[in-house]
Each structure stands twice: as structure tokens, then as C-alpha cells.
């Protein structure tokens, strides 16, 4: 049996021994797969590979089939933040002139671009800010790009930041952009996966993906490997089905795995190659969850509350947050970022003809929806997973993730759900206010208790 025991830090407001949380064991192999992926990418130039820097949607199967290596800028920024190594990149971007209220993902990744460029011995204009790291630092290890692709849905900043990457590399490299309409819903028939606008947007993006493939063929001088794309989409579909099955098993009370376990599985589904190893990974995760259910092992043995988490991840605080909720016996069971993202509607993928389904998933980025769509998805999940309350991460530098949250909270309250907000950030730790999170969480949990007592 795979359960491990981690001692959580004691909560400030609770005079008792902290509860134990069982993290999934199977996700550890994902960590290794992701590390191997980056290590391999760092040597891309020595291996003579062409490197694409891209941001946004998971277009990696297309890049894979085009025979290029892919570097997902945001994912690298997230990795640095999760490893608490983001500071050098953020210093570099600050000295380049970025104001700290700018998206910290972009600041971190553009900082990496500056450092990579510095590595190439190109002169970059920066103030003499102390802390600009030497070249050994991980942040400067990205292989310099040969071309750029931007495919950022839902956020204008995501699109604009590659305009800057392009400029940082002297406007000399080939650059292709995929644009997405926001799933806004002007018409009454509009909704999640339905309506004329959804159909039109799907076709519009699919058409652009075909153009992207033409661009890649032109840049690589090789024909696109359609068979390769079908194959990787076959594996991705299978992996995604297993992931969704595993998520579904967590409807069970107490939940056998929680949001923080799913966060650990984001990187594999987001940018690792579509292959048997990916399928095996999610098969193991599902198996471990089934075993837990059979053995009666819960993620939080003392689960008392079931919560949903809304917002983008806060990469430098994941472990800390997991402990914070565990201390209060609060199982965060589902979240927008984990449950409504990353190939989460596998039935849309036709491996024989995958482009349309891929386009649709790119449109389904969790930050590319109107609030109406979001409410439909999130309130549905709250019902499915038996949620008591929603925790909103008001992400200081990410307006895309914060859009609609205050409205969603009002809609959730009307359904009898409790809600709380805490301010944090995607990759900049300075925006946290720990005490606020602590006191608001306690207040929300108390309200849930009162509500239960009343209805008992």
C-alpha cells in the first residue's frame, strides 16, 4: 500500500497535534519524469535540436510531431517558483524595468529569457541590481530559442508577453501566434461546450492550428508527422481518461486524494510527450486511488470539511497551503485549475483526426470563460464532490484568474456554499498575507459548523 505519512505544521489557532496527511506515492514518479524532461531539454542545443519557446495551451503534441523540442515558458517559471528558485529571474526582470504588479509568471519567464540571453554573451540592458545571478543558476539554463509560438488563451498578457520575448531576441526569430476568442457568450444559446459561438470558435482555432503546422513545416523544412500526432493524441486521450476517472473516484467521502495531489500531476499532463509512459503514470495514480478506497485510506484521515479551490496555482506555496488546510481537517477536493483544465474533456479528442478536439481543449483553458460558464462548471463540481465551501485565491498579478471570482462567490453563496478569499500570487511570494488566510479559513470553517449544527 502506498500511503505515506507527513507531519503537518501545527496551526496557529489550534491547540492540538496537527493531523496527518497522506500524499499519493504514485505522483512521485511524475516528478522524476518532469525533471528528466527539463534535464534533457537543457542539452537541446548541444544535441543540435531546434527549440521552440511557447506559452499558453498544450500545443506540445504538434511541436513533437514537427520534430522540434518544446520549452513551455510558464511551466519553467512555475517550476522555478515551486523550487523557490524564482528570485534570480525576478531580479533580472526588475532590473530590466518591470514593475512588480506585472504578471509574475511573465516577469519570471522574461527574467529567464534575459539570463539565457546573457548566457549567450549578448549585452542586455539591466541596472546594477544586486543579486543578478551567475550563469550556473538554473534560471539561465533554458536553451536559447530558434523560434517562438504563442498560443495563450484567456489572457491578453499571455499573448503580449511573447511579443516581448520576440523583441528580447532582437526580432530575428520566426514567430507564430494562435489567437483565441474568449468564450464570452453574446448569444442566448451560449454555454459550456455548446452554442453557435463555441462551434465557430472551435473552427477558428482549428484553422489556425493548421496554419501553425504549415509554419512549422516551413521552419523545419520537414513534412509534418501526422501519424506521430495521431499517436501522441491517442496516448494523451487515454492518459486523460485515466486522470478524469481518478478525479471522479475522489467523490468518495473521505476523499482518497486531494487537490494538492492533482497539482503534482499537472506538469505531466500539460507538457510531457504523449506516450505509453504518460498513460502508465496516470494508470498508477488511478490504481493507487482504487487501492486506497478498498483499504479505507483517506487523504486526510480526519476529513471534516470538503472545499473547492478556485484560481491559478501559487507555485511557491503549494506545500505550505496543503499543510495549512490539512491542519484544519479541510480536504480541498476539487479546483478549477486541476479539474477544468488539461485535456479534461477527453471525449472531444478523435485520435484519428485530432485537430478540432485539440483546438477545443485550448479554448477550454480555465481562464478563457465568461463568469456564466465558470459558474456552470464550478457549481456543478461543488455538487458532484459534495463541497461545503470555496476558497478563492485572489491572484494579485493575474487578472485572468481573478476575473469573475467576486461574482462567482456571490453565485455560490446563493447556493448555500461558504466562500472565502485570500490574496496571493502565482509566482511572487511577496503578495502573501499568511494571517489573513489563517483567520479567514477559520472563520469559514466555523460558519460551516454553525450551518451544520443548524440543519442537524
Amino acid at each position, binding site marked *: 500500500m502506498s500511503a505515506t505519512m507527513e507531519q503537518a505544521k501545527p496551526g496557529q489557532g489550534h491547540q492540538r497535534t496537527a493531523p496527518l496527511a497522506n500524499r499519493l506515492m504514485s505522483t512521485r514518479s511524475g516528478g522524476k519524469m518532469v525533471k528528466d524532461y527539463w534535464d534533457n531539454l537543457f542539452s537541446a542545443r548541444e544535441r543540435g535540436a531546434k527549440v521552440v519557446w511557447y506559452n499558453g495551451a498544450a500545443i506540445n503534441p504538434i511541436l513533437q510531431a514537427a520534430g522540434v523540442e518544446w520549452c513551455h515558458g510558464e511551466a519553467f517559471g512555475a517550476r522555478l517558483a515551486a523550487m523557490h528558485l524564482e528570485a534570480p529571474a525576478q531580479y533580472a526582470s526588475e532590473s530590466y524595468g518591470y514593475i512588480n504588479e506585472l504578471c509574475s509568471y511573465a516577469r519570471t519567464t522574461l527574467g529567464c529569457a534575459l539570463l539565457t540571453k546573457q548566457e549567450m554573451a549578448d549585452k542586455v540592458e539591466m541596472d546594477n541590481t544586486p543579486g543578478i545571478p551567475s550563469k550556473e543558476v538554473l534560471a539561465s539554463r533554458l536553451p536559447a530559442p530558434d523560434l517562438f509560438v504563442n498560443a495563450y488563451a484567456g489572457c491578453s498578457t499571455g499573448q*503580449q508577453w511573447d511579443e516581448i520575448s520576440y523583441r528580447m531576441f532582437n526580432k530575428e526569430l520566426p514567430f507564430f501566434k494562435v489567437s483565441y476568442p474568449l468564450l464570452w457568450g453574446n448569444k442566448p444559446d451560449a454555454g459550456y461546450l455548446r452554442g453557435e459561438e463555441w462551434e465557430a470558435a472551435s473552427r477558428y482555432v482549428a484553422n489556425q492550428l493548421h496554419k501553425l503546422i504549415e509554419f512549422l513545416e516551413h521552419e523545419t523544412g520537414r513534412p509534418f508527422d501526422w501519424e506521430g500526432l495521431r499517436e501522441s493524441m491517442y496516448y494523451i486521450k487515454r492518459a486523460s481518461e485515466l486522470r478524469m476517472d481518478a478525479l471522479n473516484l475522489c467523490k468518495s467521502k473521505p476523499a482518497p486524494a486531494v487537490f494538492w495531489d492533482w497539482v503534482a500531476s499537472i506538469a505531466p499532463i500539460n507538457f510531457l510527450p504523449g506516450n505509453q509512459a504518460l498513460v502508465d503514470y496516470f494508470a498508477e495514480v488511478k490504481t493507487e486511488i482504487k487501492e486506497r478506497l478498498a483499504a479505507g485510506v483517506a487523504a486526510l484521515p480526519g476529513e471534516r470539511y470538503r472545499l473547492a479551490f478556485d484560481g491559478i496555482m501559487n507555485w511557491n506555496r503549494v506545500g505550505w497551503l496543503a499543510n495549512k488546510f490539512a491542519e484544519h481537517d479541510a480536504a480541498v477536493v476539487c479546483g478549477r485549475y486541476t479539474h477544468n483544465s488539461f485535456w479534461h474533456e477527453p471525449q472531444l479528442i478523435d485520435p484519428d483526426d485530432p485537430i478540432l478536439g485539440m483546438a477545443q481543449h485550448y479554448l477550454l483553458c480555465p481562464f478563457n470563460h465568461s463568469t456564466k460558464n465558470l459558474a456552470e462548471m464550478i457549481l456543478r463540481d461543488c455538487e458532484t464532490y459534495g463541497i461545503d465551501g470555496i476558497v478563492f485565491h485572489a491572484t494579485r498579478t493575474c487578472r485572468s484568474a481573478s476575473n469573475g471570482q467576486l461574482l462567482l462567490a456571490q453565485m455560490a453563496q446563493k447556493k448555500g456554499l461558504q466562500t472565502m478569499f485570500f490574496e496571493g500570487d502565482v509566482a511572487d511570494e511577496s503578495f502573501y498575507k499568511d494571517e489573513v488566510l489563517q483567520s479567514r479559513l477559520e472563520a469559514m470553517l466555523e460558519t460551516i459548523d454553525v450551518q451544520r449544527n443548524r440543519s442537524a
Partner: protein
Amino acid sequence: MKQTAEIEEIVGRLAAIAEDPNAYAVEWKARTQRKIIGILPMNFPAEIVHAAGALPVLVQEDNAAITYGRSLLFEFYCGYTRSLVDQAATGKLKIYDGIFLVDHCVALLGAVDAIRFEVPDLPVFLAQFTASMDEDTTRPQVHGRITELRERLEELCGSSVTDEAICRSIEAYNRDRALLRRVYEMRRLGRISLSSRQMQALVKSAMVMDVDEHSQIMTRLVAHLEAGSVHSTGLVKLHLSGHFCHAPRPELLDMIESCGVAVVDDDVYTGYRYISTDVPHKADPITALTQWYFDRNDNVPCSTRAQKSADWESYLANAVEKNGAEGVIVLVAKFCEPHMLYYPELRKELHKRGIPHLLIETEHEGLALEMLKTRVEALIEGIRRSVLSRETA
């Protein structure tokens, strides 16, 4: 003397309308019995609303403190979007028969969704223009979106929007833009002494008024200005840059000018950026409006668009070289992502060309003007010193 008084009177009249666009719009509606459409910055083709017989009013930031809007949009959004939402929450958007937009700034979309939530009966229509100008899929998409705008306006206004009507509207707006550009030209040449506050009033009023009425007034104003005499001021010449979507507060402009400054040009949205480009003549007016979208970004590049060949930094530095400004004040609305993202590119170019500049972040809640004044004075002092050392070298 009479000339100056006439100029003051005309500008004062436009400034009053710019100050309170809602009062103007309500009066216009009562007078004409036609609809008022609130349009949002920065790429909306007002011509299409005008052609539908409605009054396009570019919704402005309101000076009121943010109150009820706080429960709908976080404080870490730009002042413009927070104000929009607060206007919705305090009933100020009720005067509009619809809100239309084409831009996709993430903050703006969040704000407009909050407006939909708060005022569910108000028709809101997003015809999202693709922001990346480089791909050949963009042009047909934008054309299609303008066609959708036309159809939606036909529904809302209850009458068809003919090609002829759009062509007439295009002509009317081109005329008005040309008049405003003439004033800008005179300012660059130092032939007029309108303050930045007054210049802002001219453009802001164009954003909210009936275009023909505005043009009539502008025609009179231009005639008076043309008849005026050349001014030589001895002040330090500056260019104001940036400030997307909404107007910098006039008090800020007054403060800058009080430091011995003559603002000779700008690329702020409530300035030259708004009037820079005419809609070209084309047989199909929708094609013409589509072209306008691309032309604007060629003429005065904007970092809300994604275009490889457009460089705001070169535009800015070239503009400064042409208009004779000795320095630049970059005005960034706090939390404005596209501007924050691009600022280092501007800074790099200005450094490269030896153009002194100062960055000022503006906020809805107001500014510490005294503190800012010290920084502006330091910029001016630096410019004067370097002029002196060049002269004595």
C-alpha cells in the same frame, strides 16, 4: 484679445461636456429620441454605431470614489476598469441602451463581465477583434466581427445600417479627426498655447459628442487658432506618452506644466492616439473599417496589439525627434498590464537615443501631486542642465 476669449469660450464649452458626458448624452437622447450606446476603448469603430443612428459615447473613467464596485472587481485592477464597474454598481450606466466593445484586455473583459452581472438587463456585446495583427486569419476575423456589430446594432436600433450610412459616418469622423489633428500640428509647431488640460478636453469631448456637432465647434476653434500668433515660450518641451483607455487627471497635467513645461505632443489615448488615423476610402465600408484597425497600429503602435513589425519605442523616439520635445513623461495607469509589459522596451529605446524620461504611475484614487512635482522638477532640472552644458561645450 477677442480671439483669446473666443478660444477660451469654445474650449470651455467642450471641456464642460467632457467633464459630464452623461448629462450631454441624456440631453441628446431627449432631443433626438434615439439610442445611446456606450462603447469601450481602444479600438472600437464608433462609425458603425453612428451609422445605426445611435450616439456612440466612449465611456470615461468617472471621478467618483470606488464604492459598491469593490464587491465586484478587485482593487488590483486599473482605475478605468474599477470605475466602469463602479459606474455599473451605482446605476450610472443605466443611461445607455447597450455597451459594446471589441478589445480584449484581460482587465477590461473582467470588468465588462461584472457589468453584465450587475446590470443584467443592459445589452452587452463583445465583438472580440483578434489582437495579433500578423497572421492572415486575422483580417477576415475582424471583418466578420464588424459585420456582427452591424447586425447586432440593427437589431438593437430597429433599422438597417446601410453601406451608404456607414460611408457618411466614416466621412464625418474623418473630418473631425482631421480638425483635431490640425490643432495637434499647431501645438507641435508652437503656434498655439492650449494647455494639456484643454487639449484633453478637445479629444475627450470628441469621444462622447455627436460627431457633427463636435466638428462644427472644432471648425470655429481651428479658425480662431489659425488666426492667432506664434508663441515662443522658453519652456522645456515634453512629450506625454501612454495612459491607455482613460484620461490622466487634468490636475496632473496642470502640475506638470507648472514646472516650466510646455507639452508639445503626446501619444496618450485621450490624445493623439485616438485621432491619429482616418478610415481609408474603400468601396466596402466594412473593409475600410477593418483596414483602419490595422492602420492605427501602424501609425501609433499600441502594446495591447501583437504585431511584430510595430514598434512603439521607435515611434515614440522618432516622434520626439520630430516634435522637438526635450524629454518624455511616460504615464502608466497603475495595474495596466500591456503598458507595464512594454515599458522596459520604451525605456531601453529612450536611453539608447539619449532622451530623458520619467515614469509616473497614476491611480484612480488620486495622486500625491507634491511628491510627483519634485520628480518632474528633477527631470526638468536635468534637461536644463544638459542643454546648458551642450551650449557651453
